[in-house]
């Protein structure tokens, strides 16, 4: 039996350590054999669109060797970018040699037996939330679109309020492609459009740390009252029976 790895991704593990803790707690409640390994290398997703194929392949080899060295058999990642990249570029470069089974946290959680294990209950007033479809999840080789909705709607009294641009047609937060580092004006405009579409939704939930970063900045600048919440954080609050909006 190989190892079951929780792959946190470079952004979350560096900047959002609380969320990482929450994610680990959720994953371990379902299956306590999943572990985090120190010094996990970045998957490379952030620069794939500017990196020549040969360099990409070298990096994929390096990360894959690291997986092999640690006897990794299964991965649950909490990052949208890692999921997209690990499920597309790694099989592309390594073909049959890439044997790791990669899942995103949302897929992992949405399995009926796993949702049951989490036993998500909410006793407050009826709560409508918006879910933002991150590009990396909806465009992935195996798209993740229904899973987050299934999870959220499975929670008693919680309901997904669909925004006008949703699923395959969601508006990009403006942080993709490293544009956020260079031209923040993209997320200035597009994030506001997303906020405008929330209407009756009381919170904006995202499963992508890059989207979260973009949303959070603009929300603070715009003094937005409705909270932006990472998927893992929302679920943990529900599990702990505390107000998920605070």
């Amino acid at each position, binding site marked *: 039996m190989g190892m079951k790895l929780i792959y946190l991704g*470079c*952004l979350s*593990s*560096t*900047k959002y350590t609380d969320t990482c803790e929450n994610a680990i707690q959720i994953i371990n409640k379902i299956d306590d054999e999943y572990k985090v390994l120190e*010094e996990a*290398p*970045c998957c*490379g997703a*952030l*620069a794939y*669109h*500017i*990196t*020549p194929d040969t*360099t990409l392949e070298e*990096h994929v080899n390096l990360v894959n060797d690291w997986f092999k060295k640690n006897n990794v058999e299964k991965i649950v990642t909490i990052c949208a970018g890692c999921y997209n990249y690990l499920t597309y570029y790694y099989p592309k470069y390594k073909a049959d040699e890439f044997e790791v089974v990669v899942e995103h946290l949302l897929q992992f959680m949405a399995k009926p037996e796993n949702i049951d294990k989490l036993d998500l209950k909410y006793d407050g007033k009826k709560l409508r939330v918006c879910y933002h479809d991150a*590009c990396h999840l909806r*465009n992935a080789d195996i798209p993740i679109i229904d899973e987050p909705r299934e999870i959220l709607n499975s929670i008693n009294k919680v309901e997904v309020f669909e925004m*006008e*641009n949703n699923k*395959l*047609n969601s*508006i*990009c937060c*403006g*942080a*993709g*492609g*490293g*544009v956020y*580092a*260079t*031209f923040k*004006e*993209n*997320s*200035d*405009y*597009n994030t506001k*459009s997303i906020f405008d579409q929330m209407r009756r939704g009381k919170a904006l939930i995202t499963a992508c740390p890059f989207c979260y970063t973009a949303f959070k900045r603009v929300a603070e600048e715009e003094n937005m009252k409705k909270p932006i919440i990472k998927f893992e954080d929302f679920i943990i609050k529900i599990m702990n029976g505390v107000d998920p909006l605070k």
Partner: protein
Amino acid sequence: MSEEGAKLYDEVKEKVETLKDEKSIHRKFADIWRLACIGKYRSFDLRYLYDDTSREYVEKYKPAMIEAKEKFLENIEDYVDQCLNVMEKTNKFKVYYAKTNEEAQEAFMKELGDNKVIYKSKSLEAKDAGIIDALKENNIEIKETDLGDVLCQLLEYESPSFTLGPGIQFTEEEIVAKIKERYGVELEPKAEKIVKYYRENYRPELLNDVKVSLTSANAISAHDGSIVLIENEGNISVLTRATDKHIVVAGISKIVPDEFDALMVAKLQERITNVDAGYISIISSPSSTSDIQGTRVFGMYGAKEVVVILVDDWRTEAAKENLFYKDMLKCISCKSCDFVCTASRAFGNIYASKYGIGGINIVRDYIHNGIEEAVKDGLFLCTGCENCTNWCPAGVDLAEMIKNLKKIATEKGLCPPTLKKYQEKIIEDKNPFK
């Protein structure tokens, strides 16, 4: 990053800065463009009086559209031959096959002869082939006929605009002020009054004075050589009929296997843009009559001559060599990629090339003018969200093409420094955020 790269980067930054100024050209365009995108997106789910929404309609015909385009690409040379043959022999068109843009420009100037004025519809393909630039160099008076383009000419607007509503950013007040200044006519600042003015003053000229007209083609049937053109104003109807010589300039990529595929292109465009294509012209020969003793005489009421200049330039090579921008050959210019583009919504006509707004025109600029131009056009404003690819009714993977351009730019040292730093940190430190 090279010095050239830093310069291009600063140029884009400077343009983006102007978005903060409400009166700047870019901001004025972005304001109306953003509304247009939202409106277009909403209209995909409207039913009007049809049974289906535009979204459903497009989804229904998408597989057939992709199949037609792929069939063409696989047998590009055969289809071009077939098309040229039938156009010349059956349709009695005068046909040029221009291997390069230069050949197309030469053919066009030859056909123009001594004429010093050309009346044109949008004709993006002529722009692509460098014919518009060639006309300007030769001091030919270019008369636009689409009202939006007429207004752009009137207001001397040179920035990239939206093909389907090129003058949409001008207010009624701006337009009537300019009309007064130019023609000494005072008009009430109302759309109806401005349209009435052009109908009364420009329409007679179009009906009586056009000797040579230029249009592009929305699609061309390889099977019977028919040229399909769609429009809502009636300017193309006039230009293709009330003229002596109608010149069609189109890339060979406008060819589809048969006339029903061509009509499908037209109908898809209509539903995607949600502008009623009031008129669809299917032109299969110059105007002619055989009413006198069965003798066929050309030039009854419509065009005496139809000249078709089919431009290859980069196209066959792209298809045969499987170049990364091969998908450009599938594009039907419906603009759906623009409506849903994150960069386009945020940056309007800063994310654009001289061929028009949006990523597809940045790829076009790269093909003709190289990577530096593409970077200057705002290549790195794209977030790679892939909405363009998801929406394309013809299977164009625009996101992949843009990604390739970014790689080419980075290799040439033209990638923005912040982004380049991420890449270096990933490769060296295995974590870009540490």
